[in-house]
Every structure is written in structure tokens, then in C-alpha cells.
């Protein structure tokens, strides 16, 4: 098979997902859209009745919403790890996964901002954050970095996509005219001249370097929302790296799930191979080890000292009300997956899918464990309040609103991966070309 033929074959394979819309895609899209709309109805109730319909009260004012926000910001960090850290280190195997990681990053980062709005009793006052925001407040920094990260992620998704959009325009003749025109317009009439390739490469390189501090910033600032207070369980100097390392764990799990789904539904076995799963498995082991190390520091050090207020908080986690959730999350969501993934036999698509689901669920619950127990345990005792002020219990409406954000992420990911090739065609082709000519 000549090079031209193999490139044609690859393009056809990768574009199949864009070209064909099968029944299972329609069912899936319909399911997430309807679910999203039902959950949005729950939000209209909250908008009308106020935040009282959620389980959050005066003491636990950050419940599921903010935990979910932290989880979303965390998961979005994977774009930086795969595209920038691995990309700039010249690790070639990650290249086909870069776009998947970028799509996940963009979707989660975009919705993270909306999740914050769902935690607001008066969302129409969102602009006040900018008008009356205090520059000393980590909340303002958070809004700034999240917005910047969304912008960089969008550009980082778009720039390497320009040549591929041109391919879409050229190859996909039977698609609706409007869609084809959008491809044409977005591809900027790409001609593939050396000058254009140079501009794209340089721009992507700048973005890859830029995204590293911004991504570190977005999650470090999110951790500062907690660590800038003196509250038990949050008053920690390692919260920044602790959050960032945790972010890579949940991000890797999200990418593994996406890899599995795309590979199966779009028949990309040739491009997302067992080799990639093996590598992602190793990467997940690495980031999990780092995260485990931070966990050890975060719980062992205060647990050894057991200062007066830490004592109650930690005992609630280790053997109290949250013990089951805490140990379940730590063991099933971190330690056991980490051990299992050490075995080569486990680092295959299906077992890794199961492990990744556990890791991702564990990552979500871990955020809840960081937010809620601390809020239930303030320095000044809680007095003369009803029982539901003392102990946080999420309501159905709150859960539905949280699910809405998850469905929205799924919609964005599904739509994006439907309209653009999820494996960078041009980049792989160029890379192969270059490695041959060397």
C-alpha cells in the first residue's frame, strides 16, 4: 500500500464518525438531551424557589455544587497534561489522544463556570463578581483563570484542527451544505503551505507553553478557595499540588473512558490501540502514585498530631459518619486501581474501562469529602438550629441540577467529537512524514 493510499484509508476511517450518523448515536444523543432538559427543569424550580430547595444551609453552604465544580476543574486539567506536558516532552504515543484530551478539557472547563452559577441564589448578579469583585479574593482569581483556561483550551483545540477542517471540507461532500460551509470558513481556506504550517506550529507551541502555568493556576487557585481559610481540613500548605495531582488522576480516567467509547463506537481499533491503553494505564499509575503520596501527607501528618479541632474532623473521616465514604473512595478509587494497573494483563481496554469508572466516581466523591465534612465542623459550635442545618443531605433537585451539568458536558463532548475528527489526521501524517525523512 502506497503512502497516499494509507493516508486515504486513515482519513476515511477517522472521518467515518463525522460522515455517518447511526441509530445508536441518535439514541444516545436523544437520551442525554432529554435527560439534560429534565434536569434543567429542576434548575427552574431552584431559580423560582431559591437555594432552599437544595440541601445546602448556613453552615454547609458548599455542598454538591462546589464539589462538582472542583471535580470539573480537576478533570479539565488533562488537556494540559496530555497536549502540553507529554507533547512538549516529545512523547509521540500521546499525539493521537491529544484531541480527545482537549475536547474533554474544553467541555469540563466550560461547564465548570456554569456549575458555579448553579450555586448562586441570585444568578442575575453574576456580573457583580467583576463589577464589585475584590482583587484580594481567590474567587476573583478563580473566575479569571477559569475563563482564561477555557479560551486557551478552545484555541488549542482549534489551531491543530485547521488542516483537518480543510480535509473535512474536501472529503465530506454529502453532508449538509451549511455544515460544509462552516468547515470551509473555520479552515480559513487552509492551503497547507510551509508558511501556514510554520504559523500553526509556532502558535500551538506558544499555547502549549502558556497552558501549563494557566492550568496549574486554575486548579491551584481552586484549591486556594479552601486553603486561604483557616478551617480544619482546608488549612493546608500542600492543597495546591494535592489538587493538581488529584486532577491528573480524574483526567486520565476520563480520557481512558473516552478512548474506550470512541474506539468501540467509531471502530478506531487501528488508531487507538492496546498500546495506547497500556501507556495510559502506566500514566494513571504514575499520577495515582503522586496523588497517593499527597493523600498520605494530607491525612497522616494532621492525623499524627491530632490537634484539638483536627481530631474531630479526622475521626469523622476515619471512623465516624464519613468513614465508609472515605475508605471506599480511597481504596476503590485510588489504591486498588493503582495496584491492579501494575499488572500488564489488566492494562487492556475492558478492565481499564471498569477501573477508570471507579477512579472517576472516586474522584467525584473525594471532592465531596474535601468540601462537606469541614463545613459541618466549624470552630464556633453550631447552636439552636434545625437538624438539617447540622448535617448536610443533598436533595433530589440538587442532585438533578448536578446531573444537568454532567449531561451538558456529555452533550458538548458528543457534539464536538461528532463534528470534528477525534484523531488529528494532519498531525499524524506530518509526524510520520518527518520521522521517515529523518
Amino acid at each position, binding site marked *: 500500500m502506497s503512502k497516499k493510499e494509507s493516508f486515504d484509508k486513515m482519513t476515511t476511517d477517522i472521518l467515518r464518525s463525522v460522515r455517518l450518523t447511526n441509530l445508536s448515536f441518535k439514541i444516545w444523543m436523544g437520551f442525554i438531551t432529554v435527560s439534560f432538559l429534565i434536569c434543567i427543569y429542576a434548575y427552574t424550580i431552584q431559580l423560582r424557589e431559591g437555594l432552599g430547595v437544595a440541601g445546602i444551609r448556613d453552615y454547609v453552604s458548599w455542598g454538591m455544587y462546589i464539589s462538582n465544580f472542583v471535580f470539573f476543574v480537576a478533570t479539565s486539567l488533562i488537556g494540559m497534561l496530555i497536549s502540553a506536558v507529554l507533547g512538549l516532552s516529545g512523547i509521540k504515543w500521546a499525539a493521537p489522544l491529544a484531541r480527545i484530551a482537549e475536547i474533554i478539557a474544553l467541555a469540563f472547563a466550560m461547564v465548570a463556570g456554569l456549575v458555579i452559577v448553579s450555586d448562586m441564589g441570585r444568578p442575575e448578579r453574576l456580573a457583580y463578581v467583576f463589577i464589585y469583585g475584590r482583587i484580594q479574593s481567590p474567587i476573583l482569581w478563580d473566575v*479569571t483563570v477559569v475563563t482564561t483556561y477555557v479560551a486557551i483550551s478552545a484555541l488549542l483545540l482549534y489551531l491543530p484542527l485547521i488542516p483537518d477542517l480543510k480535509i473535512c471540507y474536501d472529503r465530506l461532500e454529502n453532508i449538509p451544505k451549511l455544515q460544509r460551509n462552516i468547515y470551509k470558513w473555520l479552515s480559513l481556506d487552509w492551503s497547507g503551505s510551509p508558511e501556514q504550517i510554520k504559523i500553526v506550529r509556532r502558535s500551538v507551541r506558544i499555547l502549549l507553553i502558556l497552558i501549563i502555568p494557566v492550568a496549574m493556576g486554575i486548579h491551584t487557585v481552586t484549591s486556594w478557595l479552601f486553603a486561604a481559610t483557616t478551617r480544619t481540613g482546608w488549612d493546608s500548605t500542600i492543597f495546591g499540588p494535592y489538587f493538581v495531582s488529584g486532577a491528573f488522576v480524574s483526567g486520565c480516567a476520563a480520557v481512558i473512558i473516552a478512548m474506550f467509547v470512541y474506539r468501540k463506537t467509531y471502530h478506531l481499533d487501528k488508531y487507538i490501540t492496546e498500546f495506547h491503553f497500556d501507556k495510559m494505564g502506566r500514566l494513571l499509575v504514575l499520577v495515582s502514585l503522586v496523588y497517593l503520596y499527597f493523600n498520605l501527607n494530607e491525612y497522616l501528618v494532621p492525623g499524627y498530631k491530632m490537634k484539638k479541632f483536627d481530631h474531630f474532623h479526622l475521626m469523622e473521616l476515619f471512623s465516624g459518619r464519613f468513614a465508609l465514604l472515605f475508605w471506599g473512595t480511597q481504596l476503590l478509587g485510588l489504591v486498588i486501581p493503582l495496584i491492579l494497573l501494575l499488572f500488564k494483563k489488566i492494562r487492556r481496554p475492558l478492565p481499564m474501562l471498569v477501573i477508570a469508572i471507579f477512579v472517576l466516581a472516586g474522584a467525584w466523591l473525594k471532592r465531596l469529602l474535601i468540601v462537606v465534612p469541614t463545613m459541618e465542623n466549624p470552630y464556633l459550635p453550631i447552636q*439552636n438550629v434545625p437538624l438539617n442545618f447540622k448535617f448536610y443531605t443533598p436533595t433530589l433537585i440538587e442532585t438533578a441540577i448536578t446531573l444537568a451539568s454532567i449531561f451538558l458536558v456529555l452533550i458538548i463532548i458528543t457534539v464536538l467529537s461528532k463534528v470534528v475528527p477525534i484523531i488529528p489526521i494532519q498531525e499524524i501524517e506530518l509526524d510520520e512524514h518527518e520521522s521517515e525523512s529523518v
Partner: protein
Amino acid sequence: MVLLVVMLCFQSGIAQTVVVPADKKAKASPLLFNDAAVKDGENIYNKNCVSCHGNPTKANYQKSMSPIPGDPAEEKFQKNSDGELFYKIGVGNAVMPMFKNILSEEERWKLVGYIRSFNKSYKQPPLEVVVVNLLSKTVKLAISYNEKSHQIAITAKGKIKNDTVPLKGSEIVLYAKRYFGRLQIETVKQTNQQGTVLFAFPKDLPGDKVGNIELIAKINDELFGEVSVSKTLKIGIPTDKPSLTEKRAIWNVNAKAPIWILLTYTIGVLVVLSFLIYIIFSIIKIKKVSKKNN
């Protein structure tokens, strides 16, 4: 703190049951225990009593204390006369503080009303004709300061019809007003034959910019009831501390943010923004190159 609790426990061990003089026992409330009074009583109770006595009828009082505070809805409390309850609230018992100088008479009667609201068989005796309040308006308290001896002299005089008489043996309490609440000066003292009482005033109490301190004297007389008078005297140490919100600080408003935060934030945002603008221009350039090539 622990030491204090231990001390208080020991003290309570030797505490006697409060003996109420017969005339106090027979004293009836000048106030009608209507719904409004009971409601006020509840608020006062929740602020001052609930931490030890718990919520009435719930028996959730502090069982570890000695003497055990008990639930005011209990038989043990309700078998007291109104006067006894009023007196006991006023003088306290061992670990229970003396509320005479903390709560006014009216407030203490409202508390009695609240406690009685848990007793269905209780009927308030008919009100006596109250003259105390009318008379009380004619009490005069004079506050003066002796610079040499650092003493505050308070003279209490009452007017009955046209006669002005010194109030002998009345209890007077003196406070200095602070940022939050009042600081009691010495202890509760009784007036002498001339109706005067002397309080040694601390020499090092900070006042405002010029040294002013607002003094509040309160008299609680059998006949004249409760009267308080305030007077501002230049007897404190002039204190002019800059306000915590005067300088640039983390906790201050946006316009007074620390320079380093302003710089870090602004430079960070500008650097990232300039790169992003450069990228946008690069995208425009790609478009231009395409046009040239086609």
C-alpha cells in the same frame, strides 16, 4: 478555663440552697404575663439561661454541673412563688451568676412569666397598683470624678413629694462603655448615709482620641426601682489607633488592595492576554496566506 470550671465546681459543692426573705417571697409581679411579655421572656431566656438550663420541658439542661441546673418547667421550679423565682434569678446560686445587674427588673419579671407559661395550673395573682415607676423618675444620680484619688463619686438622691433625700444603702453598679458591651468598674457597692458611693477608677483605661470615656451608673433601689444615668468624662488615656481599614490590606476594599496583589494580578492577566492576542493575529495571518496562495 478548665481551672475556672473546676473552681466553680468546688465552690458549688459548698453552696447552700438560697434562702428567700419572707417579704421577697410574697412579692408579686408588677407586670402582666401576657403573650408579649412571655415572648420577650423567651428571648431573654434563650440569651441568658438556655446554655445551662436547656429548653424548658425538654430536660436538656447541663447534667454535669453542680448544682444541677434543672428544667424550669419542672415541679421543683414551679412550686416557687413568683417572688421566689424573681429573687433567685436576681441573686444566683453558686455557679449561677447574679442576674440583678445584668437583667433589669422588668426583664427578670418577663423571665418569670416565661417560666410560668409552662405551668398550666398557674394563675397570675391580680396586679398591685404600681407606684414604683412613677417615683423612679424622680431619682437623681450625680457622677463626679476626683482627679487626685482617681475615684468616681456617685451620689443618689430621691425626691418624695417635695423632699429630696439621700438614698442610703442602695446598690449601685458602675460601668465604662467599651467597643463591645460594658466593663464593670469594681463590684456592686452600697451607698453610705449621704447617698454617696466611691469607685476606684483604673488609671490605664483607654479612652477615645481625647481620652473620653462614657460612664454608666445604675441604681437599684427598693422604693425607686431601677434608674441608670450616663456621663462622658475625660478620664481615659487618649488613644488614637489607626483604623484597620485605613491602609492597604488584604482585608480592605478593592481600592485599598495591597500593591503586590494588584501588580501580580494585572501583570499576569496582561501577559497571558498579550499572548492570546498574538495567537488571534496568527489565525488572521493564516487566512491571509490562504488568500494569497489561492
